[in-house]
């Protein structure tokens, strides 16, 4: 193992290094479940951009996407999965390690 490989940045989650995906998961950290609209408003991005990143996070098993109807209006909910929470915690722990200059 080389010195470069030991740097904590190599442990950062590849998927969560994208700023939008990082923001989506951050928004869901405390609330656990939010509607698509609530996440869009907090992260401040367009529906299509959010939809694209949500699909990637869902594909990785980090998010569960729920579909329901409120009357005739479709409602989409986003829930941080156990796997997603674990990845998020590990990502934050690595960032803390880097921030403290422990590398």
């Amino acid at each position: 193992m080389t010195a470069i490989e030991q740097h904590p940045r190599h442990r950062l989650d590849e998927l969560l290094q994208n700023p939008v995906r990082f923001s989506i998961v951050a928004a869901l950290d405390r609330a656990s479940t939010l509607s698509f609209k609530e996440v869009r408003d907090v992260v401040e991005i367009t529906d299509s951009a959010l939809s694209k990143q949500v699909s990637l996070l869902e594909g990785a098993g980090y998010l569960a996407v729920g579909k329901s109807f409120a009357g005739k209006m479709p409602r989409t909910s986003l829930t941080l999965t156990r796997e997603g929470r674990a990845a998020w915690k590990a990502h934050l722990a690595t960032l803390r390690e880097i921030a403290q200059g422990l590398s």
Partner: protein
Amino acid sequence: MSDTTPVAPAEAQALLDRAEHLSRSAHNATRWPYITFILALGVATSMGTLAMGLTTGNAFGLAYFGTLTATFALIMFFMITIRGRSAFARGRRWTAYIASWFVTYAAAISVVIWAHGSVLASGITSALILVVTMACAAREARS
């Protein structure tokens, strides 16, 4: 950022700050209807069960219908407020809060049915509803 992009300590700290800010903003924007509801539900049912436990005749009827009306109005207000929202929808915390309220409310209603007129039993069970719901609201407000 990839493996070839170094993450400086200052950048890592900025990301941590952003994560904290986003997490808190999202939670703050969604939790207040839930906190208000659980608090109001606790107050209404606590006062209602106390009044029902200690009154008879017309006064009991008034307390009964007053509690039902207040609870119904609260639920309607809550449903309208959270329409289109998904926060807490599958949350274990929210389920635990409602379950805690229900257990204490069931105890208070049991006193109304089987120990009607007992000031001590009514006082304890009604106070328990208030304490439990206030604790749930406080926990959510401080999270």
